[in-house]
């Protein structure tokens, strides 16, 4: 049950982050219309939104089964009702699922290319991910600040990963667009995103563990956190590598494409570690 939960969290977080980021970066990276790319982005978004809805519902069912301590509870209407109505998770999740369903409906409707609607719904979907997991650990003002911190963290992560996804899509049809200008725009926003996610990430670690860095280093929460940070460090290395060599980027498109894909995959790996972190106890048990 726990492995299924981790997998479910991973899939759900990944697709919601991608959706949010790709839409946020679309108007930033490409000025005006890019018909071919937009068509592919719409197709990709539909899939992402559908996978998000399925994994979101699965998450609810698994959480219900886990809380009740029995598999049958996942399909028992009265238990589901109890979860959605009476638990903190359920109260957040019913809105989250509603937003997700609206997003799927939007993508099937004639307004599917309406950027403000897309970004608005995707932002709300992302924001309602923040309170679940350790975000909900503290109560009162501190709890609210921790959730707010998590919203900022998820926004930065989502924009970065979704932006990379969009960049991969653009690099697969490089002829249509001036690559260097796009890279420069990505990189400009990228600095702010990386700064944002590092700061909010450190705040999270500090608040959840009570220390700057949890110890012992190679067990449980601290180990997974370490893996995550290493993945992010490699991503930053790749980003820096591409930034320093931007002048001849159009001569080495193949390398550029590979490194962007690699950076994106590392990002997904980092999300996988987060899915695990969310289920591990951060505090040294007292």
């Amino acid at each position: 049950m726990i492995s299924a939960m981790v997998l479910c969290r991973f899939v759900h977080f990944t697709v919601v982050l991608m959706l949010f980021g790709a839409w946020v970066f679309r108007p930033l990276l490409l000025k005006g219309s890019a018909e071919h790319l937009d068509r592919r982005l719409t197709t990709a978004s539909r899939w992402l939104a559908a996978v998000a809805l399925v994994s979101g519902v699965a998450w609810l069912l698994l959480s219900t089964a886990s809380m009740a301590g029995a598999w049958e509870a996942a399909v028992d209407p009265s238990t589901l009702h109890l979860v959605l109505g009476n638990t903190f998770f359920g109260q957040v999740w019913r809105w989250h699922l509603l937003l997700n369903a609206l997003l799927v409906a939007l993508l099937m409707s004639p307004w599917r290319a309406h950027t403000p609607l897309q970004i608005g719904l995707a932002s709300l979907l992302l924001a309602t991910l923040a309170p679940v997991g350790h975000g909900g650990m503290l109560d009162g003002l501190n709890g609210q600040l921790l959730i707010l911190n998590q919203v900022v963290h998820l926004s930065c992560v989502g924009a970065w990963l979704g932006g990379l996804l969009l960049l991969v899509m653009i690099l697969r049809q490089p002829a249509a667009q001036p690559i260097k200008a796009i890279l420069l725009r990505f990189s400009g926003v990228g600095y702010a995103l990386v700064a944002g996610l590092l700061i909010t990430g450190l705040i999270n670690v500090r608040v959840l563990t009570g220390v700057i860095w949890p110890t012992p280093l190679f067990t449980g929460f601290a180990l997974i956190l370490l893996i995550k940070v290493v993945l992010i460090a490699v991503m930053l290395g790749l980003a820096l590598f591409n930034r320093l060599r931007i002048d001849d980027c159009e001569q080495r498109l193949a390398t550029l494409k590979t490194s962007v894909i690699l950076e994106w995959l590392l990002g997904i790996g980092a999300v996988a570690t987060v899915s695990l972190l969310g289920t591990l106890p951060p505090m040294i048990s007292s």
Partner: protein
Amino acid sequence: MFKKALVTTALLSSLLGASSVFAHAHLKSQTPAADSTVSAPSMLRLEFSEGVEASFTKVMLSKDGAAVPVKSLTSEGSDKKTLIVTPAEPLTAGTYKVEWHAVSVDTHKSEGAYAFKVGQ
């Protein structure tokens, strides 16, 4: 290649997840206190380190091995960290064991047990 990587990452993460230990909400204090001898209390008060879901948290009370029926288990007002357990009938003298299985507000589970004595 991408698909493979995704599947591998997912599988690896689920493996790691399966072997992890869960210890989220723990019991910070309780009334009557653990291992104390008290005069019959009308209710038990369990205070956790973080909020717990009263709908999914179970508290089992037993006296000398026999289960003692519990009338209600609720949060104390809006404070989800504190659970109030009311026995169906006044507790008589004897040694009581309290076993709790908590579901915290971040949906994680934890459990524990303690005992106390009701004097004559």
